[in-house]
């Protein structure tokens, strides 16, 4: 098991699945969460070097998730790459990189590779 873990928080199962395939092909271990809430629940039992975050999600959205993360000293330094179509509001979020939907895989993987923190 590689310790290059990436947490993907995304509500659309199709996209979640293709992200998992792509990241695994790049050599990452992928943990999946359907929304911000699940993401937070999963964090204590994992140790991701990067979070790939969607914004528009049910239960807990991306903005709320980031707010929670930044409160935790052990999580707040995890790099976050935001993936969203909502460029205007997405800019307001505290993150390392913003990737505009529709996703180009090359762009996304480049963002992950560049921001991943061991």
């Amino acid at each position, binding site marked *: 098991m590689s310790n290059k873990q990436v947490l993907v928080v995304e509500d*659309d199962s199709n*996209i979640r699945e*293709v992200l998992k395939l*792509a990241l695994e092909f790049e050599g990452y271990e992928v943990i999946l969460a359907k929304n911000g809430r699940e993401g937070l629940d999963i964090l204590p039992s994992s140790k991701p070097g990067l979070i790939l975050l969607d914004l528009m999600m049910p239960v807990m959205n991306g903005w709320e998730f980031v707010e929670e993360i930044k409160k935790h000293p052990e999580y707040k330094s995890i790099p976050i790459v935001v993936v969203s179509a909502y*460029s*205007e509001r997405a800019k307001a979020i505290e993150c390392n990189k913003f990737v505009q939907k529709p996703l180009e*895989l090359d762009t996304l993987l480049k963002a992950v590779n560049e921001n991943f923190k061991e």
Partner: protein
Amino acid sequence: MEITEGLFKQIIENSLEGIWIIDDRNESVYVNPAMSRMLGYSPDEIKKTDLSMLFKAEDLKTLLEKLESRKRGQSEKHEIRVIRKDKVVIWTLASCYPLFNQEEKYIGSVGLLIDISKRKRSETLLDAQRNVFEILIRGGSLEDALNELLAPIEELVDGMLGSILLLDKEGKKFTKGAAINLPDAYMEGILNEPIGPEAGSCGTAAFKKELVIVSDIENDPLWKNYKELALSFDLRASWSCPILSREGKVLGTFALYFRNIREPTVYELQIVKDVTAAAALSIEHINMLHQQESLLKKEKKFNQELELLAQARKFLANSLEYEKVLKNIPELIVSHFADWSYITLSDENGVLRALTAATTPESKEFLKIFEDFKTDITSPHGLPRALREGRSILYAHLTEQDFNTEGEAWPKLGTRDTEYVSGIRKLGLRSYMAIPMIVRGEALGGLIVASSKEGRHYTQSDLALMDEIGRSCAMAIDNTMLYRDAQQSIQNREDFISVASHELRTPLTSLQMRVDLLTRMMEKSEFCEEFEAKIRPLVSEIRPDVRKFTKLIETLLDISKLRANKLHLNLQEMNISKLVQEEVNRLKPEFDLQQTPLRISIQEDLFGMCDQLRLQQVISNLLANALKFGNKNPVEFEMIGNNERITITVKDYGMGVSSEDKLRIFKPFERAVSDKNFGGLGLGLYISQQIIEGHGGTILVESTLGEGSSFIVELPRR
């Protein structure tokens, strides 16, 4: 030569002037033959005739005063009337001086008289004519004017009672007339009697177009039907002359009545002729005035109609809410020429419902009965009839009978509701018009225009005007409906675009990523020969197609955001030079691929406020257009800036844009060339323009057809 008494006598006897000697007792003692001829008496008869028989009463008084002054030695010259033996009055100019004997005692006076009747007649006629025209010009009636003509003539011909009768338009009977001293009852008796070959003097004169002299009414066959009437007023003689227009049409007659049996003298015949001519002029003049007046009236009415029509059209063109603008129409019509007016519109079930009504203040009761008013479409009259027959209907004169609702009877209205009918009747409806509003065979409703004013009955020309207004109303309604349909269609299209693009986006994102991943995986692996030869090329074709598809969906999404005013720009201060350079670099390979040279000149480090992604979208759009329409000629990209603005120019040497297309290409779904030549939705420039304008900038095109285009973007550096 010796001047003898006999010689004097010879001179006096042969003088053409009348010489008249009156003694100190005011008795005639001598008249010469000329005087005798003038008066129609023999010299002896004159000597025996009292002065009161020879002068009119009012003149006699003056004469006696003058004879008194003669005694004091006074001479003078004056005009005076003299009554001839045949009762004809003549005007004379008299030069008078006193006669004294050797003891200087007054013994009488001598007068030298000249007959000036002819001159006097001309003067009187001229004066009369002048007065007549003055009256006509001041707007007086023809009757007044003709009376003014008659009055002096009656003085000119002693004992004459004059009348001027006017023929009706058809020339069949006398309808109007002027008379001063003829009894009214007699005039009433002859007015409205038909003209004919034996219809008294006037009727016959008008019929035969010739002068008719009846010197003895009682025994003349022409008067057999009217002599009792005439004799009952003691009228014994009547001469009548037709008054002819310049075209020879009989306008009327001028008649002279006498209470004694009489033949006209030559002098009197001349008067008849002169008066008739003056009367003809007066009548023609007033007819002309009437014609002018009616022309003026017509013109005024026409102008008013035009104004009404113009106002109505202005109202109707003003707004696309027909319910609102139609409300102005009845009000407008009432202000011009109706007591009340209303519009009814057909609802979805075909029921004609009252939309709006207007009334004059006097007829405001109408609004009360109008409240519950419903048109009965089964009515054989009114608006239902107008709608059935597809034409405007005029009810010019309504009578009591037209309001009958008893039994099977239908009133001439769009309803037989007794309350409504009796209300309308009480308001005194006299005349009305029912104007249908029909568009493409569909009955939309109608307009009613009603008059209760005395004497105001609508005519065909009013109907034509209202017809025009009705048509304008129908058009306004139709236009509004078409507009609303069009608006609805646009909304539907936009809703569809919005929903479709959102729904497509998620699966498309995943599809694109899968294709990307597939491509990536294939790049890092080797497969069997068959795969490499057949499958790999096939799979690698998928990626650009999906890219295009994605781009298309993004464009549609932008459009629906723009249409819903939801395009928010995220403006931030940044190095615009750098982000533009990045975008140009990203697109450069595409130019290389299509072997189109791209010359780039970007001034470095121009900072400003912008939305990075949106601005890059604009650059990408402009460069993609240049590539698409540039005919593979070099494309020049330039970016320069000063303190105030940044200017980006994308210049190609392709087909260019015609001047009429320069504005059009910035509209959604527009393209300067037909769809067949180039793909795409034609939204790129529209979106680019919206983005640039959102930045407070401008985008425009300079182009010569066939030589290429320059798209120039100016951004303010705030």
